[in-house]
């Protein structure tokens, strides 16, 4: 008979393990385990270890003893630490403003229709995809007092008469690293904001044009408010990244001249690894944490408000 040939799948009595996975709570837990292990190993553990380290007096080769908040007290009174805190805020603030302004300007240009649009859009990303250390070395050459192409250029344009010691002067060195950071960060802003611009229907701008809004008003009343949620996320990311920046300063100035361009990260590295005072270095890097935490909270709240609007 035909019916006899039809195989009916009869599940066997499920084993305990299978039965456990049928339960969604268990299944969720099992699926989350790999992520939790990775996060735990590479983020939670180093973070906790850093906190523990910062309350000891351990050095390279010396486990050290518990000293309470002595390290924090020490950096609180450390002049170079004060400079690096000031520098970090200055560096983050100035670069973010420039990156946002230039990135937005580029994004608005790239959002237009022109020949070679796709190529330009890809090309603009170059500073972002070149390994930072390599591009920073190139910049270091451009700022070198003897070989500086900038000095050569300014000299031949009759703008300067002598050499400018870009990285040898504390203020010029700060400006130099800010320039490099802006150069490197603008593409990220430009491309992210461009993506944001493309989600805004062109009809809205056309409607506003017919409504009598001039280009500047269209940007201010239509484009900018609609782009704001994207802008906030991009700025948030950039602030976090810039605040903890290391590579550019390390390669360009090493924190110099005379510790004038240290940021949190480079100073923590210099103390912790350079001089071997691990516990003090840990205290310096942890001092960044509350500030960044606050920035993230404030901006996430703001983003939520903008989105609800």
């Amino acid at each position, binding site marked *: 008979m035909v019916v006899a040939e039809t195989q009916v799948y009869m599940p066997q009595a499920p084993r305990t393990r299978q039965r456990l996975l049928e339960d969604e709570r268990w299944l969720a837990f099992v699926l989350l385990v790999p992520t939790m292990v990775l996060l735990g190993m590479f983020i939670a553990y180093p973070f906790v270890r850093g906190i523990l380290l910062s309350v000891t007096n351990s050095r390279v080769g010396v486990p050290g003893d518990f000293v309470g908040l002595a390290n924090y007290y020490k950096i609180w009174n450390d002049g170079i630490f004060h400079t690096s805190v000031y520098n970090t805020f200055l560096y983050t603030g100035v670069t973010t403003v420039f990156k946002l302004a230039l990135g937005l300007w580029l994004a608005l240009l790239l959002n237009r229709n022109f020949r070679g649009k796709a190529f330009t859009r890809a090309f603009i990303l170059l500073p972002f995809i070149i390994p930072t250390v390599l591009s920073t070395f190139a910049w270091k050459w451009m700022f070198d007092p003897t070989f500086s192409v900038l000095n050569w250029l300014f000299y031949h344009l009759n703008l300067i008469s002598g050499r400018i010691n870009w990285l040898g002067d504390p203020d010029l060195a700060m400006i130099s690293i800010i320039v490099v950071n802006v150069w490197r960060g603008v593409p990220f802003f430009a491309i992210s904001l461009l993506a944001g611009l493309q989600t805004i229907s062109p009809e809205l701008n*056309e409607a506003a*044009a*017919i409504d009598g809004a001039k280009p500047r008003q269209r940007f201010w*009343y239509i484009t900018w408010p609609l782009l704001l949620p994207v802008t906030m996320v991009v700025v948030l990311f950039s602030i976090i990244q810039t605040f903890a920046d290391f590579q550019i300063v390390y390669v360009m100035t090493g924190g110099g001249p005379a510790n004038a361009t240290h940021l949190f990260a480079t100073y923590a590295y210099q103390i912790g690894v350079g001089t071997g005072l691990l516990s003090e270095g840990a205290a310096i890097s942890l001092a960044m944490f509350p500030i960044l935490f606050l920035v993230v909270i404030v901006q996430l709240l703001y983003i939520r408000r903008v989105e609800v609007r």
Partner: protein
Amino acid sequence: MGQVVLKGINKFYDSVHAVKDVNLQIRDKEFVVFVGPSGCGKTTTLRMIAGLEAISSGDISIDGSVVNGLAPMDRDIAMVFQNYALYPHMSVYDNMAFGLKMRKFTRPEIDRRVRDAADILGIGELLKRKPRQLSGGQRQRVALGRAIVRHPRVFLFDEPLSNLDAKLRVQMRVELKKLHLRLGTTAIYVTHDQVEAMTLGDRVVVMKDGVVQQVGEPLELYNRPANKFVAGFIGSPTMNFATVTVTEANGSLIAENAGLRIRLPDGTARRLRGHIGHKVTLGVRPEDLTVAGAADPDHPCFDAVIEVVEQLGSEILLDMKVGQDVMVASVEPTVRVNVRDKLRLAMRPSSLHVFDVKTEEAI
């Protein structure tokens, strides 16, 4: 005033000739509808009138002055977009007030105009809401409101009803018509829906491939289509076509093909004297076909085999095979027929259309 004149308008996109030599005079207070299949150039023409699209050649003038070089804001027009284009971050009130604010109207004047428009459109309750809190029909009203607060010289509509469901579309169509009668502002309306075109337009402009096929009042297009395209585009269900050869027998003209042989009525015959021995395309609307028994015995008749019977309540649509051709007839709901029945049908003589086979122009 709101008189719009298009003179020799052309639009090229690189090598594509999207709009070809459009000439048109739109009178003040007139409601003109551009209709045609997608890609026919109707929306491009509208956008050129709005100033959103540059004109490749030709002149557009509003009330006698050429506006080619004017920005959209300086043309004193208002436009309603297909997707409404409401500013999502502004309330309904601010959406409607935006154009007035940009034009520096005083606050009390803005308030008065917005509330007037809201009253006309019945959206007074919604002024504080954001666009995303509105239904499709409400958004459509807000978009209309944004246009009418400005009291422009010309309204431009770009398929404004195409995102609404069928029932709402019919309702809004009636309201648009009422609104136009009330405000009397010149309106140019783009649609691909011939029913919208016929019901709304004082005059209808039929376009195809960037070329204006015919301009006329709705019934003029229906009764005297200039070519086969207009004949097929206007009217639903669409006109039946059959290619026939014209011959002469016993002093009268006969049109025939494999499944059809009819004696042409005098009016049509007179026009076809020069086509004896040649092929022409015969056109007859489904509603101009009747079951032969009831009709005048002099009407041209032919036999058909019924393939599908569509009961619509108010009428019956019969899909039939006539020789090699497929035809549709719309007959009285009282007619009792079945699939595969053989039926003799009569044509109303005055409603017979004839087109040149090659040029497709009406003969």
